[in-house]
């Protein structure tokens, strides 16, 4: 590890930059910077730990089996009750949003990657931009599109979430389609198989795992969305609603509504809800990463 004792021009430049103490000074600086980077890394992990542990500690105080089988009490200051209405509502709304967004997102990615052209390229760029669109703006859009005509409803909420999921799915799918070897497509073409059939039975199946990962991450994102639902699904604090043309509550809305009250009973419910939501998101996240990881292993 000793530097060779010779007068290299680069070395001189570095020494003059490093100051009078030369080699040791440079290495001290190197170590100091490495330590600094490690400290920042640790601090970041500490914040993550702080959030997770705090939510878990607060949530576990109240979380129990009845949390999933009861609705919140009509008077928010009362103790007891759970978020059954929100959990079922989340499943309905996110489920419908997935049904809307996955076919469109995958198809759009097929147009972008498999067919190409200027229009497709523009779509790809717009999808990138859509990812950055504020969710509240999407909520306002769906309000005009749907709520002003048909009222607040689960359908409106699921359209808003579908728009949020759409660009995520387009991007994930496009990325996966690009990884499918061109040789596969060429082989199919040389057998005289039409392009549509090649895409449906060769290209998409080989990208399936990657697309699934992308969809799961998009679902995780949709699960936690709150702002656009305030303007679309509206919520129903009192009972389980399964009719998607009626206002429906979600887990995120229940957390929000209970969290912003001054009632300790309501806050206890909100913490339990927050823990539930984080667990759902975590499971989706880990499962998606596992699929992604297995994919990487099999490919390499």
């Amino acid at each position, binding site marked *: 590890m000793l530097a060779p004792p010779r007068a290299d021009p*680069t*070395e001189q430049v*570095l020494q003059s930059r490093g100051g009078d103490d030369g080699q040791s000074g*440079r290495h001290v600086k190197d170590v100091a910077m490495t330590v*600094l*980077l490690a400290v*920042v890394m640790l*601090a*970041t*992990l500490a914040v*993550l730990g702080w*959030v997770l542990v705090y*939510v878990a500690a607060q949530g576990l105080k109240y979380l129990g089996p009845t949390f999933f089988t009861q609705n919140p009490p009509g008077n928010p200051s009362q103790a007891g009750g759970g978020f059954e209405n929100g959990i079922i509502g989340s499943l309905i709304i996110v489920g419908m949003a997935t049904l809307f967004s996955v076919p*469109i997102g*995958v*198809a*759009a990615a097929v147009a972008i*990657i498999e*067919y*190409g052209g200027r229009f*497709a390229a523009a*779509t790809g*760029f*717009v*999808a*990138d*931009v*859509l990812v*950055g*669109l504020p969710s*509240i*703006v999407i909520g*306002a*859009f769906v*309000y*005009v599109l749907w709520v002003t005509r048909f009222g607040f409803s689960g359908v409106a909420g699921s359209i808003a979430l579908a728009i949020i999921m*759409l660009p995520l799915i387009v*991007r994930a799918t*496009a990325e996966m389609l*690009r990884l499918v070897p*061109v040789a596969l*497509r060429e082989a199919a*073409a*040389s057998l005289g*198989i*039409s392009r*549509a059939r090649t*895409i449906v039975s060769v290209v998409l199946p080989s990208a399936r795992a990657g697309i699934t990962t992308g969809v799961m991450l998009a679902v995780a994102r949709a699960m*936690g*969305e*709150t702002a656009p639902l*305030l*303007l679309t699904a509206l919520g129903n604090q009192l009972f389980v609603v399964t009719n998607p043309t009626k206002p429906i509550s979600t887990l995120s809305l229940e*957390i*929000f509504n209970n*969290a912003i009250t001054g009632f300790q009973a309501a806050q206890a419910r*909100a913490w339990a809800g*927050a823990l539930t939501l*984080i667990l759902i*998101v975590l499971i989706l996240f880990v499962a998606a990463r596992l699929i992604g990881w297995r994919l990487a292993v099999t490919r390499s």
Partner: protein
Amino acid sequence: MASPAAVSDLPTDHLRGRVGYADRLFKATMFAAAGIVLLVLLCTAAFLIDQGWPALRHYGFFSFLTSSRWAPSDATPKGTHPNPYGILQFAYGTAVTSLIGMVIALPVAVAVALFITEVAPAWMRRPLSYAVDLLAAIPSVVYGFWGIFALLPALHPIVNFLISTLGRIPGVGAVFAGPFFGVSYFAAGLVLAIMVLPIVTAIFREVFATTPIDEKEAARALGLTRWEMLRTALLPRSRSGIVGAGILGLGRAFGETIAVTMVIGNSVLAITTSIFGQGATMSSVIANEFTEAVEPFHLQSLFVVAFWLLVITFVVNVAGRLVVRRTRAGLA
């Protein structure tokens, strides 16, 4: 991350038979889906401006941007001047909270990305990136809730110290003036910093990973320490990528709603100069008032806010994407 190039026009295409009806229908379907993606963006802009139009026509297009007083109760069906729906303070709140967030998040993200890509042993890299990505998976409403109960109490001693030191400096002191009640621009900025950190870090990781390995090795072969290599070979090459990531992070911060609404204090009337004061952002005012907007032109004015928010985030995102894309193209 980027939309990858298409793999159309295979050299073997001529081997296929005539393109059939089903094939064309399939292609048309795929492009219709792509069209929906475009349509969403266009319709959003069109719908918002359409909804805001009565207010824009009533009060004048620019009157919203020249006033910082938002007082729906002052609105009457007839009166046009002064515009009771000034939105400058919301733009200010959005800008200030996002800037606070980025000032904190950018250096941290650079450090974290450098640590993961250049310092950490290989086995640690994947778990560390997952952990940072996990920060992005935690829902906004949870951050807001955690912010109220865990972050705000912890901030009090720090902020009171800042108020008694920085707050005493003539001039600049106004920015750090008390009193501090917890909910504030500063609290919102901190929460935003945590929320944009994983997004910005992910882009940095990608940008750093594109620096050719042989250049890094060459730098090390010259006898440079790791830090010198990072500073001379890696960071200068990544400069525009860092700028692009910063812009994209800013775009994300601009649009964040629920967490900010919960910790910013929801004061809508005027610009508060102190970062420890309460305010509102463009997104928080929409979330707060949208479903209860009963005063004349109230709802329409909220659509005006949403429209401007769309314009700002669109411009920022396009700029960020272009910069990041150029970096990538230059490195490829």
